[in-house]
């Protein structure tokens, strides 16, 4: 459903962040994108919904080429791609409900959104989603009164209310503590399978990625160097992606924690 064809991004500064990336994601697949800092993970995600304009190459979403769309058509396609950010990117001075409803902006006219007159079905949906993530009682709180984990849940609701086919998730857990990280990852993966969404999840935490997804793609210096199931991601492979490190130790440590948390 999503296809990247020879995607290249060179920033004005001359940094070649993506070097001809080829990637194909079938319907409903959740994929983790790993790689060292500066590998180009965020750039890749942002090139898909064109928050960053790709230098060359093509992106297809369900057969529609996104890279050449005009601004109106691009906005229509953006509705089908929900995005979740590392720093939550909620509009802090708006309420939780407004933040969730802002996911419907692509479907609602300007004046309706300006006057906060969203269709009742959107409002109901927002309540359902907030309930699903356990925040329905927070609906009228301002977003900056929430904790990090709660904010990320609101961010997830905002992405899901778009009724997307694909989630673009940029380091959803990097600002959260280990336990909340796991809860958020679980929530995202569950929601994707409930709704049959495909997702690309940028993530630094390899152990977390291995725990939750079926497919892992490793990016290094703007090129894909690994693409396979979690079990294929051997310590040797990780060394290839990230450089020298004692991988067994980190992974075991995290698994211990998980067992402790379960007890």
């Amino acid at each position, binding site marked *: 459903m999503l296809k990247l064809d020879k995607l290249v991004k060179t920033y004005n500064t001359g940094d070649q962040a993506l070097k001809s990336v080829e990637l194909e994601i079938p319907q409903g697949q959740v994929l983790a994108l790993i790689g060292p800092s500066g590998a180009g993970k965020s750039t890749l995600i942002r090139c898909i*919904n064109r928050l960053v304009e790709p230098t060359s190459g093509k992106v297809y979403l369900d057969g529609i080429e996104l890279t050449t769309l005009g601004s109106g058509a691009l906005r229509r396609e*953006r*509705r089908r791609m929900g*995005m979740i*950010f590392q720093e939550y990117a909620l*509009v*802090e001075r708006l309420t939780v409900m407004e933040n969730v409803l*802002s*996911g419907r902006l692509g479907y609602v006219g*300007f004046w309706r959104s300006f006057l906060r007159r969203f269709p009742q079905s959107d409002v109901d949906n927002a309540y359902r989603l907030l309930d699903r993530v356990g925040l329905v009682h927070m609906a009228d709180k301002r977003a900056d009164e929430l904790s990090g984990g709660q904010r990320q849940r609101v961010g997830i609701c905002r992405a899901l209310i778009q009724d997307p086919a694909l989630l673009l998730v940029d380091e959803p857990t990097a600002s959260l503590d280990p336990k909340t990280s796991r809860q958020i990852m679980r929530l995202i993966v569950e929601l994707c399978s409930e709704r049959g969404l495909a997702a690309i999840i940028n993530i630094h935490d390899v152990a977390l990625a291995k725990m939750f997804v079926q497919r892992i793609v490793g990016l290094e210096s703007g090129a894909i160097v690994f693409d396979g199931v979690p079990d294929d991601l051997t310590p040797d492979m990780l060394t290839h992606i990230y450089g020298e490190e004692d991988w067994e130790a980190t992974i075991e440590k995290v698994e211990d924690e998980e067992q402790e948390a379960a007890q």
Partner: protein
Amino acid sequence: MVTHTQPDGSLKWTRRTTGERMVRWFGWLVGVAVFVYAWNTISQATTWFFVWDAPRIAGDIFGRATPPRWSYIDKLWGPIWDTLNIATLGTIISLFLAVPVAFLAARNTTPSKMFIRPIALLIIVSTRSINSLIWALLLIAIIGPGVFAGIVAIAIRSIGFCAKLLYEAIEEINETQVEAITATGGSRWQVMVYGIVPQILPAFAGIAVFRWDINIRESTVLGLVGAGGIGLQLSASLNVLAWPQVTLILLVILVAVVIGEWVSAKVRGAII
């Protein structure tokens, strides 16, 4: 930081090199010379006889100006109302004009950095650099004396001030919040209303109230050049040397300024 070897072989530490110290001394020297020259010029243009006589004259004026002529207050209610209106309406109009100018001037929202931004910045500098009294003079020459000229003068003078503070606030917004709204597929204006406006609203309210406070002060004196408000009475009373009335007017202005400051502090406290 430099170390010198003393005659006895120990090291002495000083903060600056000799060259730097020379430059500093030279700078001070030039500064003092400029100040002395400035003072001399002022002193030459001054009739010192009057200055030596000043304590007596001040005492004389004070004697004549007290007690204030309280009954005159009846004639001041109208001008006070006008003064309030000049400040308030002027501020409101200026905010309507300042908002678009600020968006055109902010680096992250301007449609064109090459052409439109410099124009917006020019509007900001030129309206800001010229005092509202001068704007009033100009407007009186164009549209005649009265409250209306005062309102327009205050409005024009405030554009630059408000737009400058506002565009600085716009440049400081968090861009990821804006990106997040863009990523949902919102239109340009929706991104503005949901991503940018909420972030600058507190700054906007603070600026509005702050400028209103300043405008209360400025509108009290616009009448000196004929642009309406209580300054008209001040100027009339000064012309006929009615000092007790002048005292009363100054007291009224003082009270207005204090109330203005108090209101603006309260409102700002409530917003932020």
